[in-house]
């Protein structure tokens, strides 16, 4: 087909618009940051505080993002319901925590507190994994060979189904996580400006991600997962149980999300049935940011997003005299997603090209 001049002109206009968009974003970020820093309104401690918050938040995003990225790697499916799996974990942890708090075990001594947290993690992971396997079995497995849009819509359905199941089961109210007192104490190293809860989140996330890395790289089933995400048909011919690899992927991703749910609960102390939705989208953003299908990328993307969301509003927008910039932190996070898709669709560490299947 010959391209008409009108079509070419439109293409040109589109390219021009995209460049203008890129330049505008860079300008806003640079000028905003320069003005904010020049105004000297914020002492270095504020920035450090924000950076620590961002790191902790980013670790939670990373843990959730791993589930997105692994499932996408193996099935090429955006597991839309993953945010709800995370929320379910937070609820699982909540009920374990209230039971333990009722027994007086939760805050008896630092040791019992630690044991309680481990129990909460176990409970949360159990809930998340069970739910994720159910979702996989009911909503995804029968559609494995359908056109791409079909499982995606099913996933959106699963997401809403789970949200409103939780609303039906536990009501629309906000559940306050029981306080684990030792976690609220500040870490004695003063320059870090951390509470123990931040340390816990960061340490847990690192431990789980390290474990995941070893699991994927060193174990037999990890190798099977990598083989299946490379090429399903060939893997099956090599005698790999494709179904088992997929189910394991869902289970591992859900376990991470469950742990993230407990971390989220301990950090923000409030959960309700809709808690999983926005963190879910952001964690997906983190996964795309790092390069979807890429495990270390998800971690990097999560931290990056957490930092941008935490530091960004003050750094970029305050200098531009935007009133209450913190209202716009989610706007910044979602804009990041669009920016990645324009600037580097394959993500920071990704090799796969997003425009192709």
């Amino acid at each position, binding site marked *: *087909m010959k391209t008409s001049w009108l*079509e070419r002109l*439109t*293409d040109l206009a*589109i390219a021009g*618009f*995209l460049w203008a*968009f890129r330049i505008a974003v860079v300008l806003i970020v640079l000028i905003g940051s320069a003005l904010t820093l020049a105004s000297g309104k914020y002492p270095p401690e504020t920035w450090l505080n924000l950076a620590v918050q961002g790191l902790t938040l980013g670790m939670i995003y990373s843990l959730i993002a791993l589930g997105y990225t692994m499932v996408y790697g193996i099935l090429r*499916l*955006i597991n839309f319901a993953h945010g709800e799996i995370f929320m379910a974990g937070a609820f699982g942890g909540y*009920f374990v925590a209230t039971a333990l708090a009722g027994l007086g075990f939760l805050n008896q001594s630092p040791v019992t507190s630690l044991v309680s947290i481990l129990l909460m993690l176990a409970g949360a992971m159990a809930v998340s994994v069970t739910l994720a396997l159910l979702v996989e079995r*009911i*909503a995804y497995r*029968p*559609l494995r060979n*359908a056109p*791409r*849009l*079909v*499982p*995606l*819509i*099913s996933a*959106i*359905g*699963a*997401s*809403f*189904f*789970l*949200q*409103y*199941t939780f*609303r*039906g*089961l*536990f*009501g629309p109210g906000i559940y306050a996580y029981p306080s684990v007192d030792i976690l609220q104490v500040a870490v004695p190293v003063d320059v870090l400006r951390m509470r123990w809860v931040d340390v816990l989140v960061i340490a847990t996330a690192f431990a789980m991600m390290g474990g995941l890395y070893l699991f994927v790289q060193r174990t037999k089933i990890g190798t099977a997962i990598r083989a299946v995400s490379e090429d399903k048909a060939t893997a099956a011919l090599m005698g790999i149980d494709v179904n088992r690899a997929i189910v394991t992927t869902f289970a591992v991703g859900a376990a991470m999300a469950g742990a993230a749910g407990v971390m989220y609960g301990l950090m923000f102390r409030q959960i309700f049935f809709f808690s999983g939705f926005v963190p879910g*989208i952001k964690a*997906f*953003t983190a996964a*795309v940011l790092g390069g979807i299908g890429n495990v270390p990328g998800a971690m990097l993307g999560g931290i990056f997003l957490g930092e941008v969301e935490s530091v960004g509003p003050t750094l970029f927008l305050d200098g531009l005299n*935007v*009133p*209450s910039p913190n*209202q*716009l932190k*989610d*706007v910044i996070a*979602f*804009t990041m*997603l*669009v920016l990645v*898709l*324009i600037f580097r*669709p394959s993500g920071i560490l990704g090799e796969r090209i*997003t*425009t*192709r*299947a």
Partner: protein
Amino acid sequence: MVVRMTESPFGQVSWGKALRIGGAGAAVAVFLCVVGIVPVFHERPLITGIISLGQTALLLSALGTGYAAARATAQGGPLALLAAASAGSIAGVALTALVLIGSAVDLRAVFLHASPQLYEILTFGQGLTGSWIPIALGALLGAVGGLVSNVRVDLRRPLTTALFALLLAGLFAGILRAAMLTTPLADLARLLFASVGLTVIGAIATVVLFAGGRELLYYTNLRQRVQEMPPAQRRVVTWPAILVAAVVILVLPQALGSFVAQVIAVVALYVLMGLGLNITLGLAGLLDLGFVAFFAVGAYTVGLLTSTAEFGIAQWPFWAAIPFAVIFAMLFGAILGLPILGVRGDYLAIATLGFGEIIRLLAGSDLLKIWLGGPRGIINIPKPIDVPPDHFLAGPNQIYYIALACAVVIAFVAWRLRGSRLGRAWLSIREDEDVAQALGVNLVQTKLLAYMLGAAFAGLGGGIFASLVGSIFASSIQLFVSINVVAIVIVGGMGSIPGAVLGAVFLIGVPELFREFTEYRFLFYGAALILMMRYRPEGILPTKFAAREVHLESGELGADTVVAAPAESG
């Protein structure tokens, strides 16, 4: 998979399968109870004094369990009935267990709806002495379900018709009664309908009327006869039918009272938006989860241009403002669409979801508060036509007609576009982007047009919404608007115009009319999306094109099942 069969003179039964289906039925029944559907819907009677909607939900799950068990396990005969009854009783056992556990431990500490009221419903008020009732009823209903699966198809058809008719009539009984009470039919209304739910006579009348009517249609073979008529004669039959339908649609808001009129105005609005998304999603295959962004642009444009209160800037009439709403929404579509239309479909879904959130947050933020009013919103948005309150165009009625007229226009546009060069380019993109590009379709531009058209109609919907409600607040801009529209299009059938109407009536109208549904609306949407994708991905009222496509694919699937079948039964 090896399934053990019991050999017997009556036939074969695989008990393993019956057990599994019974287990699934038990899970569904317990889920219906603890999620609160049974207790909440128990407050709405279906047939007054006989059965409530909550009980109907349980009844249907038991019937379904028996039906599926009889279907899956045996070729028929008494053993199939036995399998169905045992599957049904497993569901009953689960409910009994729920009652017993719930009476011993307080489940309400965790599950909000596991209350004594629920146990009362399950045991019919008998307390613990009645805990055997669910098992017996489960077995009985399971057996009935099994029986239904065994009877000849010309007996099953009227049964299912009667069941559906009962459900619908029971739901709408109150509204029908209210509408009929003001007419000479008041006595008939009192005879058939209670204030909520049907009377016994009403139920019998419904069953006879609908099951009988459907059988009559079936045996007279009316539809086929009409189709086989020569065109001139067919026109004589179809035109009056269309005319009657049109008249019914036009007098609907006048006949049903102001509350229902408000609801059907909203339904008409969603029909309009569903048809708009039908172009983006149904034709071009772009899953747009950020519909609300353009809805917001349209609503705020109309709000700003027409409002006579604080934030209004022009005090224009509605008719002058609405074209700008459409144009601005389209421009926004272009601005938001351009950066992301280069990427593949499933990224688009998330990116548009992000847009919806961005616009929602911006509308409520302090940044734009000085212009858009933030949470305080823009009020005093005038209605399009200024009439006295008792005029037939007053209030939501005129919005209904306007939305309807716009919907007709959009349907016409979509229908004409479908066969055009552009429409065919969209379809080719939907099927395979790479192939489409190879054939010379300019991907970004073609997608952009679809996206902008969808945005334009979203803006139109938003503008009409602002005028319907008379105000626009940041809190009206919710993700649910997008999800509603997507669900309408998918449940109705992608690309199908009657599908969008049906989808809007059921997914918007029913929850708006009945309080019980509001709480579980998105639970139903979620379940509907999953089930539709699994069993009927072409939607309830698919286009001929989509249906043919799916049938072609399922033909291949059928061949697979034939090959796999011996392994299944071995």
